[in-house]
């Protein structure tokens, strides 16, 4: 066994014969910040969703903290709980207030008392700077605020790692920074993170490593500086020339 936080071992995922992730392998150590980048349709979401167990690869295995993530195994839910997941479209529960969004899982899944759960929730609302919004419903929040609530919601389960699938892609430009700052803060505190992002600035300054995907394959897996300054593959060069001005 390995003591990597996340180990992806030759996974392949197809949708009706179309290969979205093709024999991908990846290892992430505790405290590492890894950015997944690549063109649209290259399989970034599929890969990060396989890591979280939202999708199940046909072949290959995913290990979290040394344990295999297997939906048929009894500890699937337990292993999964070590990961927080943040979606592009937030997926807050519109029928609940911000505080209820944050306390639902801690109470129902972890068995915390309402009071305990609220204390933790308030702590994380503080982290994302939205304490004053605790009694609002999600439809009263801006996109950036929704995403910060979604991050706080995931943090309330005290995960050991956080996965982000394009957390700022659905946001107006002026909201992006608020969210990135929260993520940066998490990174500084030593959270293990995988971030699918098009935010090159974030990848450059915060990420330890950049994993570049194309057509479902991991084409490049290197430290951020090397990737941006001196990419190995022509594909990555081509991609960078298109996204950087």
């Amino acid at each position, binding site marked *: 066994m390995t003591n990597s936080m996340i180990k992806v071992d030759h996974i392949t995922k197809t949708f009706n014969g179309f290969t979205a992730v093709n024999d991908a392998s990846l290892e992430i150590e505790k405290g590492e910040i890894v950015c997944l980048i690549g063109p649209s349709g290259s399989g970034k979401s599929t890969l990060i969703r396989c890591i979280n167990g939202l999708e199940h690869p046909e072949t290959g295995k995913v290990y979290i903290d040394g344990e295999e993530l297997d939906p048929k195994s009894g500890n699937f839910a337990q292993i999964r709980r070590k*990961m927080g997941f943040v979606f592009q479209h937030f997926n807050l*529960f519109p*029928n609940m207030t911000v505080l209820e969004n944050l306390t639902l*899982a801690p109470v129902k899944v972890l068995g915390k008392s309402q009071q305990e759960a609220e204390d933790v929730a308030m702590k994380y609302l503080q982290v994302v700077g939205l304490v004053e919004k605790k009694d609002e419903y999600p439809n009263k929040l801006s996109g950036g605020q929704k995403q910060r609530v979604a991050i706080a919601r*995931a943090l309330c*389960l005290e995960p050991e790692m956080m996965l982000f699938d394009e957390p700022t892609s659905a946001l107006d430009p002026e909201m992006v920074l608020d969210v990135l700052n929260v993520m940066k803060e998490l990174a500084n505190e030593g959270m293990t993170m995988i971030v699918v992002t098009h935010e090159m600035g974030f990848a450059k300054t915060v990420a330890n490593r950049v994993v570049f995907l194309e057509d479902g394959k991991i084409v490049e897996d290197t430290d951020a500086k090397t990737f941006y300054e001196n990419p190995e593959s022509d594909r990555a060069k081509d991609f960078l020339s298109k996204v950087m001005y």
Partner: protein
Amino acid sequence: MNAFIEFLTLDNLTYMLFGLVWSVIYGVIVVLVGTILGIIGAALKISKHKVLQSIGGLYTTVFIGTPMMLQILFFAVALPQALSFTGMRFEPTTLGVVAMCLNAGAYQTELIRSGILGVDKGQWEATETLGLSYFQAMRYVILPQAFKRIIPPLISEFMTLIKDSSLLYNIGAIELTASASVLGSRSAGIMIPYLDAGIMYIVIYLILSRVEKMAERRLAVSD
């Protein structure tokens, strides 16, 4: 017009209102039990188990595919007859109401199912990543959102059921149409009692239509 006013004695009016109250009570019972059956039916139909799916499918096919009157007669008349050898006694009205509940449950299965399927897939995924079980996801996240969108059609269903409870007249239940018929047979003509009953149904209908419109508006605002 004179005949109309003459008919509206306190006694007659009380008798009609009594029938109306029962019609509404049947409507309430049936819509509530129907909702519970609808939740179960919808859960069966959207489950991944082939067998459970088929049970749900069979249920809705049978109860949507046949007329409610036939179902009421089957439960209230045919079933007691078939079971008479057991010596058990059944109250026809109760059995008729059971039939109506099953019928409403089938329609509400479809309604609730479409409500559940209408909830964004991302909501399910969020519950999954937070570790909620299927039942917890349904109970706290999916059903509340599904119900919000089906409250207006549910109110329509309630209006229909109040009217449909008049079918129970055929098996001797007390309700508004029955009240009108009884009063008609006692007085000179049946026209006035029936008109009177009709007006009462319309008043209920108009009230509930208003409630439905209000619900629609409220729900539209909060979305």
